């Protein structure tokens, strides 16, 4: 995020260069107050509806608040208990496993489809339109459709094909239910990533490939040395944002397994939701949410650090 943020803040040609602040200042000195009026209400509302909940959540993570009634400060005991709670620990394990597998699959598949759509194929626009459809559909409802497919149709198909090992409902198997969730997630999330990669691919000038072709570079070599480095920024952003959003998985699990069988597919968001709203664990789940926030920030920065080394620009 840092590179793109820097890029966004860098004056693009026409904005006053940072070396001449007096000129820029005089330009706006007539109406600086108006600019403050434009942002202060937004700042107040944003602070009230975003920052205040975060801070109050952090505060309540230090209490034994049940979500109703009275509460006492309990120090860090919620945090200590978190690390001994097998349900919380298994939700972290599930969520991370799910997010890693989904992120890799979504990005590999989306990049492959985007390369295909960027190549010399017929009906480009129509295919592009079809691959984007899942993005506009509610994943909860898609989850209900796939729930039926996993429970009834796929077993029937596999049985008729003679694969008796696959004749059961994958969602009912504690060891494999997560695969069903990954399939639905990838089915939906690939759509958006295809479009992002396609936008990235279209920024690459064709001349580069011409030159590489003259030099006799193979197509795989061209992909590795030209295409992939030049869409590096897109790859970084897609990996970071999709991983972050998959760590918050909720809707599709509600529709597919509702956390089951047992608690084998309970995600972190789901544990916080259930414990906080239904289990009387408001304070405790806020501690869980704070740990989760720290984990997400750490992971995002590690990812950015690691991935940005690979980027190149023209």
């Amino acid at each position, binding site marked *: 995020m840092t590179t793109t943020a820097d890029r966004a803040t860098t004056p693009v040609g026409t904005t006053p260069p940072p070396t001449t602040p007096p000129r820029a200042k005089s330009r706006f000195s007539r109406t600086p107050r108006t600019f403050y009026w434009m942002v202060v209400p937004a700042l107040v509302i944003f602070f009230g509806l975003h920052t205040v909940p975060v801070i109050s959540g952090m505060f309540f993570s230090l209490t034994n608040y049940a979500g109703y009634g009275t509460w006492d400060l309990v120090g860090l005991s919620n945090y200590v208990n978190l690390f001994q709670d097998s349900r919380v620990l298994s939700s972290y394990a599930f969520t991370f496993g799910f997010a890693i597998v989904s992120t890799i699959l979504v990005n590999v598949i989306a990049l492959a489809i985007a390369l295909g759509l960027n*190549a010399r194929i017929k009906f480009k626009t129509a295919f592009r339109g079809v691959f984007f459809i899942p993005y506009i559909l509610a994943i909860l409802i898609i989850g209900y*459709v796939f729930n039926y497919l996993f429970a009834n149709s796929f077993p029937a198909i596999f049985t008729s094909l003679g694969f008796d090992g696959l004749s059961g409902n994958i969602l009912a198997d504690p060891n494999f239910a997560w695969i069903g969730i990954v399939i639905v997630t990838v089915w939906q999330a690939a759509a958006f990533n295809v479009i992002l990669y396609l*936008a990235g691919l279209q920024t*690459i000038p064709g001349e580069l490939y011409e030159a590489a072709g003259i030099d006799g570079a193979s197509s795989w070599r061209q992909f590795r040395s030209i295409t992939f480095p030049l869409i590096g920024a897109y790859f970084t952003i897609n990996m970071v944002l999709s991983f972050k959003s998959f760590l918050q998985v909720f809707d599709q699990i509600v529709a597919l397994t509702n956390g089951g069988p047992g608690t084998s597919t309970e995600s972190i968001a789901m544990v916080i939701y259930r414990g906080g709203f239904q289990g009387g664990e408001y304070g405790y789940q806020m501690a869980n949410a704070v740990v989760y926030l720290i984990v997400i920030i750490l992971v995002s920065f590690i990812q950015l650090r690691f991935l940005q080394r690979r980027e190149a620009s023209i």
Partner: protein
Amino acid sequence: MSTLTNNEAFVADTAVDAARPRRRRRLDGGNGGINWWLTALIAVCSLTVLIPLYFTVVTALKTPDQLGGTGFELPTSIRWENFADAYQLTNFPRALLNTALITVGAVVLTLATNSLVAYAIARNMHKKFFKGLYFYFLAAIFVPFPIIMLPVVKETALLGIDTPVGLILLYTVYGLSFNIFIFVAYINSIPIELEEAARMDGASTWGVFRKVIFPLLAPMNATVGILTCVWAWNDFLLPLVVLSDPSAQTLPLAQFIFQGQFNTNYTVAFASYLMALAPLLVVYMIAQKWVVSGVMRGSVK
């Protein structure tokens, strides 16, 4: 999923085609050197998208006794009453109206306010306050919703905005981070001379924003509008936790709440799913090119 196994070959294959410059492709009249194998491969891949949709449609049209088997067979006799049943059971018109109002409200309020904030920030980035504000808003991109979820429910209940109006406000606020990010990048590319000309003619800062900047933001407004629309229309978790009045429920929420009542009545359930998915699907089919290019524009910075 089929793309996964032959992925490497697929990538190598397509790189060959990407190798030809786009300009020449156009001179060929768009017909020369079409890679038909790749077209076929892409067509097969696109079936993974279309088959579940086909399944939803045929199941919604069947009578319960036609279910059985793989379920991919065409219906032998059509039961239109599925839709009428689902319509009544989920109180469809109510949920549709709620969802539409929330979505339209969120889109309008987002476009009107987020672009304004981004404009003020982009034109004052050299000032500490505005720069700090920019990074404050951006930092929120890394804050996951679950940490806000429990406290915001308390807060909206306390403020009496556990209603569709409150939801509109929340979508506008929670979308701000990302929207400012893409608006600011775009405003930086608008020549400041245009504003100066308007200022010479005596326009105020508000006037400059309304008459010069906002119209120039049209492409980005389209992008942000589409993203906000899809998000607000399909969102499940925020309405689930925030809305307290059952009559305020949105389309996805209605599907969730009525799961128990669909029971094993799958054909009615699928009719209900189809009706919930259809409105946005129809809009998308009409404005498909515009939607896709709008989203693509948002990602090129």
